[in-house]
């Protein structure tokens, strides 16, 4: 089914979405560029006049440039919330350095004899700037604008993480779902966009020096015109807004299932896992997806809605280990199984809360838990071999990775290397399959739907209970990938929809069906 679909078919099928994402992407890029040019060009001119300020100004713009894009977007959220505003501000900050620097270089590079001649003929400073310096600095200045624009087309894909839309929705959805058509449907237009904008700007740059004066007038209008395409997802007239991760958007046991089984009709934006809880807490979003054991559920006072039609399969966590490693170090299985059955849902939520809200380190939380259960042993001398433990990017996985590390060090002569923070399910799984890690904690439902994704007929044949799903994934992983699922740890970290406790109580929404009724009535 999905595999047999070609990229062309996918793009045709999703053309409406693709078109609107592309427009949003262009608008995000250009709008931020218009602001950047409006600020950076005068600033560049100013530091060309007052050279002693050039160091601090360029230095500061340089520091902004070094902040990782996803971190910059994160920093914006407390001030500007989610959506296009923080995205445009972040892109604006990224565009500053190339434009300021090239304006400065361009103006200071103008032959001083020419400026002297202009002055000697009686031009005012303003006339020298407009008629002599800017036209002569124009090619260099445009080169800066080109650089910034191409960078911003790339960075704008990250805007999808904070519900600002753009082609990043397909790219990150595709990565999370291991759907290469979806990745390419976002990545190819983004690349083409960068190439096209760069080409157009290179033409502007090469315009004969004489026509430059006209371009100075036309360019801003062109930008603004293109920006008028901009339209953004936002809360309109009190209707409810849902924020889902790219992964959830494309999963059968996610938004697709909600639409098919519950006939859920709600306005949605795509948002990253890292910011959605806060956005929901602050009322920017009303419904989000999440994990039932997530500590942030407690931290941000959210409640899960009951999955009364059972679209979310059970998600019992268990370590997935390479068979080769278990064979080489037989003692490993026993060590890893020490955690089995120790952690129930509440216990796990509490540990997650300690990390996410109380900001305790995963190491401390892990060691406190193990010592409470008399499992914490001082490390034995190592040297027998190295076990590489992977984890996905959220607190629970960090805690589990730390617990396994402490258990292995305490009960075997093996050394441990942790590779935590591997982007998502697919990245962890690929790392495991390709012998880059030896084990990571996985969830039965995720293994079933994301890794194995069986055809609907097979899927319907598997009962949605804990043991049936576990046995199915254990068998298939063993058979298909030479990977072993050890005993489940105990808790069920299922997908869930969640809302603010207060809003859910006011609207008397307890289950997803209640939510659907509420939406249909309004």
């Amino acid at each position: 089914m999905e595999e047999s679909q070609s990229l062309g078919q996918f793009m045709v099928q999703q053309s409406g979405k693709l078109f609107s994402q592309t427009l949003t992407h262009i608008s995000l890029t250009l709008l931020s560029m218009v602001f950047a040019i409006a600020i950076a060009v005068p600033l560049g001119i100013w530091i060309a006049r007052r050279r002693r300020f050039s160091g601090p100004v360029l230095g500061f713009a340089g520091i902004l440039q070094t902040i990782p894009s996803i971190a910059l977007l994160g920093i914006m959220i407390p001030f500007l919330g989610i959506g296009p505003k923080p995205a445009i501000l972040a892109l604006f900050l990224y565009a500053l350095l190339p434009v300021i620097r090239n304006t400065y270089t361009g103006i200071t590079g103008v032959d001083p004899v020419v400026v002297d001649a202009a002055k000697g003929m009686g031009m005012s400073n303003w006339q020298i700037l407009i008629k002599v310096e800017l036209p002569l600095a124009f090619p260099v200045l445009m080169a800066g604008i080109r650089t910034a624009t191409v960078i911003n087309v790339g960075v704008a894909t990250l805007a999808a993480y904070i519900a600002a839309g753009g082609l990043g929705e397909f790219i990150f959805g595709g990565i999370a779902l291991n759907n290469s058509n979806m990745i390419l449907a976002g990545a190819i237009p983004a690349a083409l966009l960068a190439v096209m904008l760069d080409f157009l700007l290179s033409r502007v740059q090469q315009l004969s020096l004489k026509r430059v004066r006209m371009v100075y007038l036309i360019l801003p209008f062109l930008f603004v015109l293109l920006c008028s395409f901009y339209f953004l997802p936002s809360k309109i007239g009190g209707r409810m807004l849902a924020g889902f991760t790219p992964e959830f958007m494309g999963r059968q046991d996610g938004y697709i299932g909600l639409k098919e089984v519950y006939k859920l009709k709600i306005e949605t934006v795509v948002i990253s896992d890292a910011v959605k809880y806060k956005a929901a807490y602050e009322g920017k979003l009303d419904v989000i997806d999440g994990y039932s054991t997530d500590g942030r559920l407690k931290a941000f006072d959210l409640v899960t809605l009951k999955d009364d039609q059972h679209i979310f399969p059970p998600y019992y966590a268990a370590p997935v280990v390479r068979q080769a490693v278990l064979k080489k170090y037989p003692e490993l299985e026993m060590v890893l199984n020490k955690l089995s059955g120790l952690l129930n849902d509440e216990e796990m939520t509490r540990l997650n809360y300690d990390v996410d809200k109380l900001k305790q380190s995963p190491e401390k939380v892990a060691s406190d838990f193990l010592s409470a259960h008399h499992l914490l042993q001082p490390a034995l001398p190592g040297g027998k071999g190295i076990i590489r433990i992977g984890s996905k990017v959220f607190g629970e996985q960090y805690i589990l990775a730390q617990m396994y590390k402490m258990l292995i060090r305490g009960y075997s002569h093996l050394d441990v290397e942790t590779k935590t923070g591997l982007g998502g399910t697919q990245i962890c799984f690929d790392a495991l399959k390709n012998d880059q890690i030896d084990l990571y904690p996985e969830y039965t439902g995720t293994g079933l739907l994301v890794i194995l994704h069986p055809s609907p007929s097979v899927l319907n044949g598997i009962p949605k209970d804990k043991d049936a799903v576990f046995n199915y994934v254990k068998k298939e992983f063993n058979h298909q990938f030479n990977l072993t699922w050890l005993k489940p740890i105990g808790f069920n970290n299922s997908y869930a929809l969640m809302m603010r406790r207060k809003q859910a109580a006011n609207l008397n929404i307890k289950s997803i069906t209640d939510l659907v009724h509420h939406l249909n009535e309004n």
Partner: protein
Amino acid sequence: MIKVENLSKKFDGKLAVDQISFEVGVGETMVLLGTSGCGKTTTLRMINRLIEPDGGSVYIDQENVGGQQPELLRRRIGYVLQNHGLFPHYTVLENMSVVPKLLEWDKEKIRNRSMELLDKLKLDSTLGKQYPSALSGGQQQRVGLARALMADPPILLMDEPFGALDNITRADIRREFTELDELAKKTIILVTHDIQEAFEMGDKICLMDKGKVMQYGTPEELLFKPQSAFVASFLKEHKLLLELKFLKMGGHTAWELLEQLELGKLKEILFTLEG
């Protein structure tokens, strides 16, 4: 016409121009002569206020330039630079129109005046649409002069105007310039380090060294009545040639006679010299 009084300028605490005074009459060409770093260019640039003096004043037609708005002052004074300073992004005609446009002339007047000057400076009118980079060095320098002459300013300041040209082109263009009727009636201050150029073009020469005037007078005065050993030694290398050019007999200079190979008359002159 132009009067400079006790003009001084310091750069980083060092005197570049030290208490300079001179007067230039209407229609005269005055040459500021000296080695590089002697303060001649600084002096020139204080006249149109590209540099503000630390002491002293400049008067044009009895009016102190210090009290005038610099931009308006400069529009009334032609300015020719070494390396011409043409705008690379403007055509020849656009370059020439800069000052008239600042003075808000109408298009017709600008066009007529441009054509007139191109013709006078022996520049083909088709060059008008070219950019400076397409022109030869000599042509660029002529356009530079044409640009300065467009608004017919009574005063012309020239900073090493032939400095960037090779020797042969330089001599040719210099001769053309001296023969130009547009320049004949102008008051000109010209900066050069070239002694021959100074003696050929100057009605008066102001020889400078280390920011001070060493001697101010006609070429003949400098040549035949040097006021100090510095002046004499400065001119020494060129002395014979200059003397040949300035000694006159029957309406001809010795140099002209030599050129025409009228050796008989030349002997006569040299004979009288010895006598």
